[in-house]
């Protein structure tokens, strides 16, 4: 039976982050925690292929207890097994420490039940680094295809997969030996609307919880703050700039406004030179 594993992350919905003016830290209240969108699409893709080939799907996440919700969403989408790797000792992990934790968990799961393809989302929308997928892949010695937009073929017998990778200049069709790893773009699969029984199953679901010592005995020097070479030296709000001069169309009318705008733009030498070149 083919076995897929997807590593997911629960993230704050960063499209609307606000900083508390009094404390300078992020206001978490009212900011929903969501399953990282890229990870969600990765799970959808893995679930699709699992159904096609009659296989098994495991999802894992490293996070606080609340990350259980993200795993529930994965069960809703068709995952069979979910593992929450949670321990205070992981707090403060940067991408190097995180890829270590995930890689070792994947290794452990693989020991019991060989994994054919590991999926990651392209990047987490809070860190936006896109480093954990490649980091875990190289620790596991897996060939890696990033920016995957389509899985064309998975051949378990002959042990290969054909994956389409999107770059700035076009699409690459990559054939890779299995086991392998990929990081997924949203295009890789659509998120399905789960059947009601599947949703109900996910609501009642509780994941397996792993700690920093059981069942994997993590090396203390490679996790958490101690295992993170990078740290925040300082942080703050971006500098506020002087608000621009604004012209209100309601006050002056469209025509007069545009006239004024073009006039002001032309009084800027850079823009004037640009517009000159056009003529």
């Amino acid at each position, binding site marked *: 039976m083919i076995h897929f594993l997807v590593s997911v992350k629960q993230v704050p919905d*960063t499209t609307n*982050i606000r900083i508390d003016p009094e404390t300078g830290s*992020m206001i978490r209240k009212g900011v929903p925690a969501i399953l990282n969108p890229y990870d969600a699409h990765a799970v959808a893709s893995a679930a699709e292929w699992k159904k096609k080939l009659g296989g098994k799907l495991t999802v894992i996440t490293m996070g606080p207890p609340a990350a259980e919700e993200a795993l529930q969403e994965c069960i809703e989408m068709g995952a069979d097994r979910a593992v929450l790797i949670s321990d205070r000792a992981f707090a403060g992990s*940067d*991408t*190097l420490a995180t890829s270590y934790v995930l890689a070792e968990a994947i290794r452990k799961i693989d020991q019991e039940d060989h994994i054919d393809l590991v999926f990651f989302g392209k*990047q987490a*929308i809070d860190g*936006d*680094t*896109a*480093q954990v*997928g*490649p*980091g*875990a892949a*190289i620790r596991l010695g897996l*060939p890696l*295809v*990033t920016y995957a937009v389509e899985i064309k073929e998975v051949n378990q017998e002959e042990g290969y997969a054909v994956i389409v990778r999107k*770059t*700035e200049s*076009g*699409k*690459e069709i*990559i*054939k*890779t*030996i299995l086991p*392998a790893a990929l990081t997924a773009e949203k295009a890789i699969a659509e998120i399905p609307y789960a059947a009601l029984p599947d949703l109900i199953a996910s609501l009642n679901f509780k994941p397996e919880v792993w700690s920093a010592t059981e069942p994997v005995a993590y090396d203390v020097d490679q996790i958490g703050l101690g295992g993170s*070479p*990078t*740290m925040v*030296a*300082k*942080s703050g*709000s*971006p500098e*506020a*700039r002087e*608000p*621009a001069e*604004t012209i209100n*169309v309601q006050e002056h009318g*469209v*025509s007069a*406004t*545009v*006239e004024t*705008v*073009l006039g002001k*733009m032309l009084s*800027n030498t*850079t*823009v004037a030179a*640009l*517009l000159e*070149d*056009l*003529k």
Partner: protein
Amino acid sequence: MTRRFWVFIEQDHGEMHPVAAELLGVANCLVSEVADELKANDEEAVVEGILVGHDVDNVAKEALMYGAERIYQVDDPAFEHYLNRPYAEALTHLVKKYKPEVFLIGATTLGRDLAGAVATSLKTGLTADCTKLEMGPFRKIEKKLLLATRPAFGGNVIATIVCKDRTPQMATVRPRVFETPVRNPKAKGEVVKEDFKVTPVMMAANLVEFIKDKSTSLNLEYADVIVSGGKGLGNSKGFELIKELADELGGVVGSSRAAVDGGWIDYAHQVGQTGKHVRPKLYVACGISGAIQHKVGMQDSDYILAINTDPLAPIFEVASLGVVGDLYEVIPEMIQQLRAQKGASA
């Protein structure tokens, strides 16, 4: 002791990616920032480039013209097309050999694929998508460290990251965040050919076919004029109007993340922290609220004109000039007046 400041020279089938030049410029700035330490310790610092590819001697020569003192070049037919494993292994091998202090990689699709793998192999720290790099003091550490500044949490926080106790200190930088240094055709520098054997294990994933994207005449990052549309357009049809204005101004079409997420335009046009960084001479933001992720991608433009119905839209904070009004009224009028002006002077 030579302190090495390295830049990955990205190339695509024999063409150097401009971001490599930009990073060479940055690397040289970093070197100048440790001039005092060099003097005090009687040390040298060099800016060097790492080039991996097949038959790319011309790229090595090009890279030298942008401020590299030396290029280490690895050549093998296996490197003709980018693949994660062989490239990562080659870089790791060279880093272990020469032990650079700082290693910069462009945050392109290729660079982001590569950097995480290399940093993890080297068990070192990597900071992604930096908007500012400098050498500076950190706590009681004697030597200056690379202070890598990047927006976090969608740009609402600006964080400075350090990598202490590990080398090389790695960072990725998106194209166009930094300026292109002046090209010096007379630059003298050496190219050192390095041996590296690519083994079959590294080739477990292989390129079968490459389908070139026909619509890549879009060069957002290096455009002089960009007209961008956002959520305020209301629908994908609005981009026809944006294109009209862009054509009138001799520019290209950009967009906010909201418009891309809404499926109105392709991601290739996205300007912002998770899209492209741009620094055009003229940037026109239409119906874009100016959320920080977008601002971060275009605030270095020389002149910014913003059009939005909401007088409180944050875009007005970075704009040089703002218009509070309906873009569906303002833009057609602009096009009309621009045409009239052109007509008048013709």
